[in-house]
């Protein structure tokens, strides 16, 4: 009888409120509060020269979403210190997913965090990139048989660069940035479009893990 345990969120269930003139207004939060459009694929510019110019700019200006998961987030901060100074490579931290291009999944993802990570990822704008740190995002690492962590990140979102290690040192992450830049400049970093194209698959995978997905499929 697992069904009974499913928690229904009172903020997301339909409800009736009384309008100013005494009329009944039915509010369906999912419908009314959230945009339920699905992601679209955004084609690159047809003119090759423009596209490569833009890709160069994207590669040289990587804005990282400050979202730390797992133990790897501690390895991110040294990037900004004089010793490693990721700014040199055009890498900057942004506090809001709307403005960020790169999401760094810095370690294992518990199911709960995965949900948030996906939301944040979806709120980033195309083109967007994902860098995954550590073994945990590749095969679960030491949490391979944990009941509440995922094993493979790229089942849930398209990953551009994996940086191996447990955890990778900042130098490795810097190398990861370089690799990502190459990928972007080569026009291969089309993760956002990949996600949009294979949205159903990704969503299915995500929902398999996240039982209480009670929001519209795509978080705008």
């Amino acid at each position, binding site marked *: 009888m697992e069904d009974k345990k499913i928690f229904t969120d009172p903020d997301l269930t339909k409800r009736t409120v009384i309008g100013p003139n005494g009329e009944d207004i039915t509010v369906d939060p999912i419908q009314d509060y959230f945009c339920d459009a699905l992601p*679209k694929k*955004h084609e*690159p510019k047809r003119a090759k020269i423009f596209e490569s*110019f*833009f890709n160069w*700019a*994207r590669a*040289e*200006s990587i*804005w990282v979403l400050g979202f730390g998961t797992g133990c790897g987030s501690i390895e991110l901060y040294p990037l900004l*210190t*004089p010793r490693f*100074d990721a*700014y*040199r490579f*055009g890498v*900057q931290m*942004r*506090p*809001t997913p*709307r*403005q960020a*291009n790169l999401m760094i999944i810095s370690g294992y993802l518990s199911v709960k965090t995965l949900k948030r990570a996906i939301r944040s990822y979806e709120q980033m*704008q*195309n*083109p967007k990139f994902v860098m995954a740190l550590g073994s945990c995002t590749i095969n679960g690492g030491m949490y391979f048989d944990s009941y509440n962590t995922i094993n493979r990140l790229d089942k849930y979102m398209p990953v551009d660069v994996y940086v191996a290690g447990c955890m990778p040192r900042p130098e490795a992450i810097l190398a990861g940035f370089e690799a990502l830049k190459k990928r972007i400049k080569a026009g291969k970093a089309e993760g*956002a479009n990949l996600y949009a194209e294979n949205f159903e698959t990704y969503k299915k995978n995500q929902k398999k893990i996240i039982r209480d997905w009670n929001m519209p499929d795509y978080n*705008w």
Partner: protein
Amino acid sequence: MSIDWIKLLFTLLGLFIVLNYGLLQYGMIRRITARIGKRIGMPVYQPYIDLIKNYSMRSQITHGVMFYLGPVFRLAGGVGIFMFMPLIYGSYYWSNYSFSGDVILIMYFMFFGMLGMALGASEGGHPYSFIGISRGLSQFTTVEVPFTLAVIAVAVQHHSFSLTEIVAGQQGGIMHWNIMTNPFAGIAAMLAFLGMMMASPFNVVQAPQEIPIGPPTEYHGTYLGLLQTNRAILYVSESILMVNLFFGGATNWIELIVKSFLVFFWPVFVGLVFPRFRIDQSIPWFLKLPLILGIIGIFMV
């Protein structure tokens, strides 16, 4: 009504110069900031790349009409200040559209962008936008008081609100600059300038660690590009305003750039040294020393 096309061309050229200068200046400042933190820092041209990248974002979202208008207002405000600002003393073509109005027009045009931005960000509906805006507006009220006193002092001193006149009155060497002839007003304005630039210690408006980045939380892509463009233009324009008001204006571009860079370096310098004020600390701060200096400045005339 005949339009002076050559003048328009010069104005646009000036705008282009100022935009580039602003972006480079920003890069430069970031670089200098990095060096103070013993880092190497980003390339000087990094702001260009950021700008291009933002304009090249493929997807965008919108929260409504006002969401669009916010950045438009903001940039129009910034460009407006530039448009009504005489750049080079004695040059007809580099005086932009300053014949439309005097320093008061410029002062009030600052609000134009602020209010528009505030409305646009509010349309986004993000609570942090509201909080950031309420802080920004609150702080702005007292920032402007010493600044206004200083402007009035200068205007009284030169018997004109016209920036051209004010610059003309300061010609003839460093001792004629208003910062020398009326140091109190000058210092009051420079202190107020800290607040206008929203640099630390007065950057609680955007407070990245606290309310992501305040008003523009929801802005991205082209919107953010507009805002960045505006920042480049606005900061330089405001620096030029300070140069015109207190540092003798400029008779050529080199002088203008050097002076405005030095003026702009003042809030950066302060910001690197001091930590951030809370909003209820920063608001009264401007009503203390800067206000007193401003009042002395006005009665010095």
